[in-house]
């Protein structure tokens, strides 16, 4: 069964800290991995990772994929209260139309 596991499930830090969120996957015929940020409702797209070892960056957020060890990390530097959200990662299966989601990491940034 395809599985995506995220850790930690919950993380509370102070504004300005750097955080690393983890996502490991066991997905047959893996194609790519997606990161989403879920605030109040809709997951909003952050990154798509297909190739191993290539870092993707967007402002203070960055992410990388390791296809040998089957995991990805999402880094957020200089965190702000607006970064508080649930961060979801999802695996994409080759030839399939569905995303397989992890359970999410609830990140809370305290001022």
């Amino acid at each position: 069964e395809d599985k995506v596991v995220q850790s930690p499930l919950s993380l509370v830090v102070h504004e300005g800290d750097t955080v690393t969120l983890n996502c490991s996957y066991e997905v047959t015929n893996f194609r790519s991995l997606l990161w989403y940020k879920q605030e109040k409702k809709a997951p909003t797209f952050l990154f798509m990772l297909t190739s191993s070892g290539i870092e993707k960056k967007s402002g203070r957020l960055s992410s990388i994929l390791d296809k040998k060890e089957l995991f990805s990390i999402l880094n957020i530097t200089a965190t702000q209260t607006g970064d508080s959200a649930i961060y979801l990662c999802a695996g994409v299966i080759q030839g399939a139309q569905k995303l397989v989601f992890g359970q999410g990491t609830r990140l809370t940034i305290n001022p």
Partner: protein
Amino acid sequence: EPEVTQTPSHQVTQMGQEVILRCVPISNHLYFYWYRQILGQKVEFLVSFYNNEISEKSEIFDDQFSVERPDGSNFTLKIRSTKLEDSAMYFCASSGGSGSGAKQQYFGPGTRLTVT
């Protein structure tokens, strides 16, 4: 920026009733999806739709559920004879371009379904 929209934002229904959840995907997208998220649980795939037919469905998507694209813009999920355990947030998503498949799906804001 184009976005996926969903209506209603919250639907309350009695057990045994039928509900229709509506979605307007991003206009040039070709792949459409429904997911659900039971409170406190993972987002789960229900069904994908391409070229006017279901392309993939999960075990959850049984005969109680159906999808339809009744016109060029709407994409609906019908749940017949609702059960208490159907209470969840239902997300519509779409992805675009020929051959893009499941890449980079854009999600709507969700419909919270409460079955009483």
